[in-house]
């Protein structure tokens, strides 16, 4: 499944983003829209495999998702849509463009202060 390739790319980005930062990678925040062609469940399962041996080996993956919305080029209305039916809800036109829902983003990484972890042990 391509979700594993995507996790590998994700972990390379996390590595680069946290290089030079102290602390443990605790949470990785991503946005996966319903039109992005990536299954959130598969991504979670792939993440559990891919994070082994990386800076993110103890991290959780937090997946946010913006709804699929289109903007109609004929009547200007914005509609919430399903992935295989991107028609305007007001006028029925297929001449729409995606306003949200196709994102596949690394939003950010949350690191835990190692000192806090040690004192809590």
């Amino acid at each position, binding site marked *: 499944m391509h979700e594993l390739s995507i996790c590998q790319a994700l972990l390379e980005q996390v590595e680069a983003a946290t290089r030079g930062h102290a602390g443990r990678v605790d949470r990785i925040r991503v946005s996966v829209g319903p039109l992005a062609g990536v299954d959130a469940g598969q991504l979670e399962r792939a993440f559990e495999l891919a994070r082994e041996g990386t800076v993110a080996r103890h991290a959780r993956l937090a997946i946010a998702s913006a*709804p699929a919305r289109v903007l109609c080029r004929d009547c200007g209305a914005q509609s919430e849509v399903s992935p295989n039916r991107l028609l305007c809800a007001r006028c029925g036109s*297929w001449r729409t463009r995606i306003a949200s829902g196709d994102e596949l983003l690394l939003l950010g990484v949350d690191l835990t202060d190692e000192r806090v972890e040690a004192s809590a042990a």
Partner: protein
Amino acid sequence: MCEDCGCALPKASPDPQVVDVHARLLAANDRAARHNRMHFDDHGVLAVNLMSAPGSGKTALLEATADALGRDIRMGVLVGDLATENDAARIRAHGVPAVQITTGGACHLDADMVHHALHEMPLDSLDVLFIENVGNLVCPASFDLGQHRNVALLSFTEGDDKPAKYPVLFRGADLVLLTKNDLAPYLGDFDPARAERCVRELANGAPVRALSARSGSNLQSWLDWVRAQLAAVRSRRHAHSHHHSHPHTHDHGETVAR
């Protein structure tokens, strides 16, 4: 406001250090794809990515295309498969250069694999490069290879509602070809109009055309489309022409097969 930025998610452990990134997950592949596209543009080559389920007739279409294209359009092919060199060998037998990419296990081509294969492709003696992606209607759709156009194939022996079942791939197609239409008299339940409706419901106005590589039926409309895209890409390139050389700084030791 914050449906998609993640700030509505519950806080992590106490006093987390937050590193904001806001980058596309596939940014590295996108960069490699842009690099490929620059190579194509530098050589005035049209790059076309063909995608479909296994067995929809990508290789057969390329064989028929190699036979039918006149001397005025020179084509080359990159073929992606998990294993074997069979498809590249088939295409080479028609007198055009073809390079096989064997992915090992990867279910899709990516920009790095294409870049690696391009080193064996004589771009300076080509007008069109066809990239035959791995047969798969799911994964290839997510990976930009640096192509100028995407073509999706759907054969008459498949379901006519497949565009609705595989929306990402068909939504991104610049042309949808309904292949093997020579079999239509024997099948009876494939409705090309339904396939087209499914494509339109993906907000995609791409042409949907039936043809047969084997019988040659409507093949000319495909060749005309290729010629038109080549002209369009070349005239855009002329309009934006800025000549620059760029150093090739990537490490040739990187492996791209997975």
